[in-house]
């Protein structure tokens, strides 16, 4: 057995194969990106433990994640926010976690996306479980998981082939995702979800921006819109009463201990906004919520600055628009004394 020879052959061929794989996917237009995974959320969540009265925590779903740009917010307010919003998630478990498991009494900005905020309080339902699984991961994270994440970040940031994502995007290139794309005939019944491509890039401090392609490639943006339509058609009816009741309890506890709670309704447009107006009308949901809870609140439709904002895929702002939105929103809040500007220059 000439093992040395075999090892040498394996090393050379492996290097060639891996380099070829990396080069091929780069030539297809892919670039290295971080995965928006639980460990990244957990890293950000850890910051809440040491956060002070002056700090700002953002919770909510993907709109508050894409639309509030951390860097711009910091420039405008002097405080770098802690971004705990989570795509496709209800913010209710996140607020509950902050109230129940921390002493934080600074500012919490709650992004209200009606379809998710008012969706459910059932622990196994998708929007709830999705958020809760991140919270549980943070609570149960082992030292080995922390070390794995620490070691994986440089690889994710530099190699396209490290694309496996918890979200299982349709354009991931890990082996499992590639096999998922093979179709040899449909046996199952029921509506099939359209392919869902990754349309955002996240940084190591959880700043999310819309991928350029979503803005420049209409066909790509339409593929995302089809996914929203699918979710809209298949989602169960909202559970306004129980979600509101659950949220109010935690909100009141947070305010009682001196916390500053702010509600924000980020922009949506086109068919997505039409759908929301039809099934989750502002009067019945947003207005009802802010009518009960006496906290500062901001709906994008109430401000002339935001009237002309258009979401490329009907639900989130492009990077440029998100920066504009963040800047204006921060200024509105400062003028409204909802938050304090820490830095004057």
């Amino acid at each position, binding site marked *: 057995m000439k093992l040395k020879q075999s090892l040498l052959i394996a090393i050379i061929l492996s290097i060639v194969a891996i380099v070829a794989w990396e080069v091929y996917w780069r030539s297809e237009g892919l670039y290295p990106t971080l995965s928006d995974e639980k460990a990244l959320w957990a890293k950000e969540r850890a910051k809440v433990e040491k956060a002070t009265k002056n700090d700002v925590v953002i919770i909510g779903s993907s709109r508050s994640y894409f639309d509030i740009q951390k860097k711009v917010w910091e420039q405008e307010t002097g405080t770098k926010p802690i971004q705990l919003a989570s795509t496709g998630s209800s913010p209710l478990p996140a607020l509950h976690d902050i109230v129940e498991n921390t002493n934080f009494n600074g500012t919490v900005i709650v992004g209200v996306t009606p379809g998710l905020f008012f969706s459910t309080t059932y622990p196994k339902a998708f929007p709830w479980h999705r958020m809760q699984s991140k919270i549980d991961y943070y609570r149960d994270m082992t030292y080995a998981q922390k070390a794995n994440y620490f070691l994986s970040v440089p690889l994710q940031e530099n190699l396209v082939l490290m694309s496996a994502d918890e979200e299982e995007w349709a354009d991931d290139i890990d082996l499992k995702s590639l096999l998922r794309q093979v179709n*040899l005939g449909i046996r*199952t019944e029921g509506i099939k979800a359209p392919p869902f491509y990754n349309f955002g890039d996240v940084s190591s401090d959880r700043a999310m921006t819309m991928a350029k392609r979503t803005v420049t490639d209409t066909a790509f943006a339409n593929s995302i819109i089809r996914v929203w339509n699918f979710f809209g058609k298949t989602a169960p009816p909202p559970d306004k009463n129980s979600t509101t009741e659950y949220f109010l309890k935690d909100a009141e506890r947070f305010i009682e201990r001196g916390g500053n709670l702010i509600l924000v309704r980020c922009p949506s447009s086109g068919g997505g906004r039409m759908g929301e107006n039809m099934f989750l009308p502002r009067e019945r949901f947003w207005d009802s919520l802010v009518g009960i809870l006496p906290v500062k609140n901001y709906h994008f439709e109430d401000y002339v600055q935001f009237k002309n904002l258009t979401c490329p895929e009907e639900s989130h702002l492009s990077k440029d628009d998100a920066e504009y939105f963040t800047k204006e929103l921060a200024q509105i809040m400062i003028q409204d004394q909802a938050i304090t500007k820490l830095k004057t220059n």
Partner: protein
Amino acid sequence: MLFNSLSFIVFFVVVLVFYYSNLLKWNSKKGLLLLASYIFYGMWNPPLVILLWISTMIDWTAGKRLAVEENKRKRRMWLYLSMAVNLGFLGFFKYGDFLLENFTLMMNSVGVEYQARPMDIILPMGISFYTFQTMSYTIDMYNKKIERARTFLDFALYVTFFPQLVAGPIVRAKDLITQFYEPKKATVKQFIWGLFLLTLGLFQKVVLADTLLSNTADTVFKPRQILNFWDAWSGTLAFSGQIFFDFAGYSTCAIGIALMLGIILPDNFRYPYASLGFSDLWDRWHISLSSWLRDYLYIPLGGNRHGITRMYAALMITMLLGGLWHGAAWTFMVWGGLHGTYLILEKLQKQYLPFKITPWNGMFLAFVTFTCVNFTWVFFRAREFDTAWNMIQSMLFLNPEGTKILESFDIIKVMILIGIMFVSHWFMRNTSVKKVAINTSPWILGIAWTIMFFLIVIAQGSGEQFIYFQF
């Protein structure tokens, strides 16, 4: 820490660097391995290392006393102490909630209103493995089959040796402790072969089990589904492959890692899906556990020394407890019970309907054995009896209107992969990877190695835990 993780790669490289540096003498190297083993375990949950220490201390003390004590009563007392502590740990951490739940059910069934709060006890990773390993030392000492470990360091390292700490192989003291007495260093061939085995084990785990099979099994075994025949069989076969590749993958990694340190661990799997009957299966599947159960449970229960009825009873008790060893649930007991029944039926067949196994009927017999094994896996994988029963019905064509939940590709993928696995086991049943590798050209071996490594890299994996860690 998981073998299929980045942190393990860094950890192992650091261990290797110190292990092969000339800075340390053999005793210090053993100390290094012991420290590394505690770090390996503690990276998951540091406080639970204390359990390892307690188990180590108790069995070291018991072994030390048993080595000199001649008084039978006192000897027995030391044995009972070791068993009480180790089985006590197992009972509390692994079966605490299960016992409480069943006690509550029993009380309620006799009309006593009783509700207990679940204890929500954390299950220490690999507790079933290391407690069985340390107990084997004390029992062997009690039976005067081995000499006591020369030093505490040797013994502590035997209990904690990181390659096999959390999922075996469950190594006997005589096979491992003695290796720690003299300086060990892998030869270049051993080191490279160990690296090859590590790659092979990771390929089995990351690519075959996690990437190609786990999703199908998880989808099919969701509760409250009445499935179509093909979906039920695909899910069961997928799990059958997944658990083999997952567990055999772990064992292969463990053997490879130990070999890179110059330590030889025994085989734990020998192509079990080509077994000719169930005695053969248990000589090939999780060999270190089945031999443990044989030596420390079946034989003490009487084995075949007290007539047929007693032998069957011993066999059934052994398999039922073997099932329970895997998990605190009645479904595992049924799994063990089915295997016990198969073994008894096989013994009856050999007694009353003997036939000669030829190459012609052998493959058919292997196929029948594999098919029967698949029915047992249903109870092993399903968490509720309803799920298991629905699956069994679907597999027996009793749910013709069952739902189709798998796409054509999933079914084809599973059938091809499991077909290849079965045929490979058949052709490999009387040989080993090493023997095959010896007769393979370096180029072919190098290319096979590359393919496995490349697929591991592009599969990436999400650091899925090995299934047997929970046992």
